[in-house]
């Protein structure tokens, strides 16, 4: 589905993968906060990010964990608990065995609070799009939207992508594509506005 870079829902409940991708670049995260984007995640996502035992822990993983702790402490990422009743809704989903627990908890919370799910996993997004009126958002969507609304400048692109790559995150190609598409959309929107005036 084509992304509309002119719109981005400001209240996001992020799954584990999306938390890491948003926090991977300090420039991206700060720009999003300054554009009034709010990030929340469930207790399960916090567990998966900070507590779940790893067979091996990388330096990048430790860096991201430190960023998440700091962001949570500063209330830049809010931790929202889900309730048993939320789980009972998710238990009815036919696809529940296809998703991880972080994703399930994220969807459960989003259903109750009508927030947008922020997920960079295609399968999770497909499920969200099947059951919720508001489609799931992605980190490349956020990145592109920040260009559309002029919260990031051209010189930020390489910084964001460089920071993202530095901590081993995998969205470089998608961020590049989102950047190009957002600029195209912005130009078209400006042209169409110019034509009207």
């Amino acid at each position: 589905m084509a992304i509309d870079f002119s719109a981005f829902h400001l209240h996001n409940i992020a799954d584990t993968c999306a938390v890491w991708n948003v926090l991977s670049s300090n420039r991206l995260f700060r720009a999003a906060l300054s554009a009034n984007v709010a990030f929340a995640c469930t207790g399960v996502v916090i567990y998966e990010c900070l507590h779940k035992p790893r067979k091996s822990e990388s330096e990048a993983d430790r860096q991201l964990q430190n960023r998440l702790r700091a962001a949570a402490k500063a209330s830049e990422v809010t931790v929202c608990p889900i309730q048993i009743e939320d789980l009972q809704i998710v238990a009815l989903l036919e696809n529940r065995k296809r998703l991880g627990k972080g994703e399930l908890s994220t969807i459960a919370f989003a259903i109750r609070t009508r927030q947008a799910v922020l997920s960079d996993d295609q399968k999770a997004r497909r499920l969200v799009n099947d059951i919720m009126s508001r489609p799931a958002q992605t980190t490349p969507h956020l990145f592109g939207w920040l260009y559309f609304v002029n919260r990031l400048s051209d010189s930020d692109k390489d910084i964001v992508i460089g920071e993202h790559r530095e901590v081993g995150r995998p969205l470089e190609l998608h961020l590049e594509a989102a950047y190009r598409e957002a600029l195209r959309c912005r130009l078209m929107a400006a042209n169409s506005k110019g034509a009207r005036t």
Partner: protein
Amino acid sequence: MSLDRHMFADKLQRYMAQLQVTANDVTQATGISPDRMTAILNCIADPTGDEVLILADFFRCDYRFFISNEKLAPFEQTESLFRKHGSDLTREDRWAIQEFLFLCECQAFLLSQISDVARKPFTFAKTGDFFKAHGQEAAESLRRHLGYGAAEIPANVYEAFRSIGIHVFRRKLGRSTISGLFIRHPTAGPCVLVNYSEDVFRQRFTACHEAGHAILDDGEDFVVSYTKGPAGDHLSEIRANTFASRFLLPPTVLQQQSITWTEATFLDTAARLMVNAEPLAYALRDLHLIGNPQVDTFKRLKVPAGEKKDPELPDSLSQRSRERKQELLQRGLSDAYVGLCFDSYERGTISASRLAEMLLIAEVELADLATLYRRAMSHGD
């Protein structure tokens, strides 16, 4: 629907007892605060939805097990198993069994989602009450079912049993004297665990022995087999041994060996048939091809370790890949299972996060494993 707080606390406490973990262990591994843990265990507070999911992840079970009365986890089976064989199982062994059962559940789910996997379910109806004959007939029937030729020796018994719907996993069981076990999972069906600590040929025989239990002990929820143990003379153990022997060493194969049995020819035959000396010696004796004095001599012989090839660790692997895959195999992650998980991810059956859960790792560790198995992760849009 409200949660039954007492039922939840009871299940939690029983899991903690089964797996020998304290409340402190749980809080440290999960990030759930000690106060919350105490309140939940003492039925003072309901768990949150997050806590249910986190505890299910920690105990490797379906979260619905905690909040419903459905039989979703082999909870009674493991409780009885640990009660009966507890003194033979270390805490690490108990966790290995718990993870093995989780892998069986995942495998059963993934297979149920794939329509193009060739499956050949096998059932065997016992007649009479001669246990040894049950073993012989079931082995012959299964060999026919799998389309084996009269002289064919199964190269990969793990794959053979997986193809008939038995979930077979190998896993290192620390200091245990257990060679393998069979559990009938309430949702996944028959599950066989082989102790990876034992030598390759022994594991092969154990897989067949446990499959014998899965096929023939239809009234049992679980059976534990020991390297050397008190159950060795039990009729169902003899039956499972007979099944394994006849499956691996059918009379047609042994009777074709028109050779004079010396120590050298015996060891050569054992290596070729991929069995250790003891089962081959007994199989030859049962067919009157050697006598008791030769059995006593031959069964003490050792097939050289270099002759024992693991079908799930082919020689073609590089040294580094071999070490990594061996390490994964010790945790129960066979090539077949890892391949099934990645295939399911690539088909869009499961998300990356679920893939990580099924592979017993955190999501951030996926990229490394994908590289080892030459798989690609897809992200973004």
